[in-house]
């Protein structure tokens, strides 16, 4: 089913995958593509009503390609979930820039404590399989496969 974000022009839809979880994401900007990816990630790992307290956290990353930046970003969220028991709750600000061939991300987010029992799916990692961030006339898209 296509999930639309009403505040932004982005959407994601899960694709049937035999062993893992695949999702196709579309958005009007690279930042929105990353934010929609976070929403898909959250839908995989937790029930929407299981989030309570909130605290601010900043993630800064750089990488050699936008795909690798997206994988690293989602894996950072997954690490915080599985090791620190923190789940991203809300993205306050997301900036992505390319300088000297390097892709940089600064993301300010709110996260909540989560009990291990409330995590519905363990993602081993975000994979690069079939991931290709494409831009066509200002529209961005990619597929993400989560190894579970």
């Amino acid at each position, binding site marked *: 089913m296509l999930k639309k974000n009403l505040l932004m022009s982005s959407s994601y839809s*899960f694709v*049937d*995958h*035999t*062993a*893992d*979880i695949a999702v196709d994401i579309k958005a009007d900007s690279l930042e929105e593509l990353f934010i929609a990816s976070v929403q898909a990630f959250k839908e995989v790992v937790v029930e929407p009503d299981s989030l309570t307290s909130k605290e601010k956290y900043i993630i800064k990353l750089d*990488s*050699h*390609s936008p*795909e*690798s930046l997206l*994988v*690293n970003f989602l*894996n950072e969220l997954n*690490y915080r979930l*599985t*090791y620190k*028991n923190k789940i991203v709750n809300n993205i306050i600000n997301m900036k992505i820039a390319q300088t000297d061939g390097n892709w940089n991300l600064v993301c300010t987010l709110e996260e909540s404590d989560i009990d*291990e*029992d409330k*995590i*519905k*799916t*363990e993602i*081993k*990692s975000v*994979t*690069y*399989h*079939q*991931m*290709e961030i494409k831009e066509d006339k200002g529209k961005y898209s990619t597929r993400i*496969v989560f*190894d*579970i």
Partner: protein
Amino acid sequence: MNPEIPDLRFAQSGMTIKMKVNKMLINGIELKKIRENLWEIPATGEMRVPGRIYISQKMIEKNLQDGEALKQVMNVAYLPGIQKYSLAMPDIHWGYGFPIGGIAATDIDEGVISPGGVGYDINCGVRLAITSLDHNLVKNKIDKLVSNLFKNIPAGVGSHGAIKKLSQSDIKNVLEKGSAWAVENGLGDNSDIEFTEESGTLKNANAGSVSERAIERGINQAGTLGSGNHFLEVDIVEEIFDEKTASVFGLFKDQIVVLIHTGSRGLGYQICDDYLGRIMKASKSYNFSLPDKQLACAPINSHEGEDYFAAMQSAANFAWNNRQVIMHLARKSFKDTFNITDSELGFKLVYDVCHNIAKIEEHKINGKTKKVCVHRKGATRAFPPGSKMIPAKYREVGQPVLIPGDMGRYSYVGVGTEKAMEETFGSSCHGAGRSMSRKKAMKEARGRNLINELKKEGITIQAKGYKTIAEEMPMAYKDVSEVVNVMHDEGITKKVAKLKPIGVIKG
């Protein structure tokens, strides 16, 4: 369209095609029949070798119609230095990078190593332990046994705390010694080491190649099952196909045995992730042409390749230690449940095999013995009689090959053959393989009580959450008998015994 090549793109689920064919075309991928259960994808484009899949026509028609897994067999054939064929076993299904059930051997001088050819769950594997108990003794206490197993062995997402949290020096030793660490710390016997692939230790592991984050994720997870398709099963030996080999493995009819399936947990996932990133960054300088980023690879003898190999071996050792600790906890659970001594219980390891790994092995290529790096991604080593790589006790018959099915039907014990050495780099299938996505399985499970359904079949299950039971329902998997029969009929692995589950714990 060529009339000799049936176009199966529009085949409906459940459609029966009785005609036997010599060629098929699936989503533009040509498959040529070599033998009854062996199909070849000719090398096209930048494929360096053809693809070969051990599978029946019926299974192709039923399970491979989307073409995704076949495309992955073709993609693996792009790897520099790949030898003979990009192979897949009958439990093949769509993975990431390699298909699940994929095997590739690369030249150690001119070839590459690919973290995607091993997977995130490095040394995910299976161990089989026997007991002296028979079904009659256990059947009335199976609920209590399952409950004790579930209490003593942490399962589920992020599960931890099976044993005391490891110190930094402990974790270094686990990474470099594998199962031996558990045995040195009273969590097993020396015979457990003898009956583990590679004696439970890959010697070139280097804890220094493992990131702090990987250690952080693994330090509290020794002895934990995790979630997803990982499990511990109490089985009965339902059928023996080969009395002599079964006897060598210590198996008899109606015997109670234990199957444990798990891997290197968060530590392995992090190592794969760390090195994929590093290799991907370096890959521009190698200029390899690869059709999938997940196949990122480095020359085996490059810095990146060598460091990944050392870290991967460390994760493999962590996984062997993990299964060793779980086995010790299972032994304790049996003793507590039945209030018996070690000698009365007779809990012994038959074998422990890994099915996500890259290993340097010697194989015959074009008549010459050559060292190659064998990637097994969802495939089990299956060495033949006489191999010096298997315990002396098994050299007369061959290596035990452990093939779990689903939690409702059965699993198999097989034995390695010389033909596997000739054709599949000494490898066999690793399980049933999923036939249904988790989403589809959840839909199928809606409105059903799977716990009761399994109970009616004589199987007690305890899991952290019902979602796992639904996603892992028996019908979500292929019938493992079909998979094993392909391997048996092709002479790659011979059937020894069939196991039937009576108790299951899952995450």
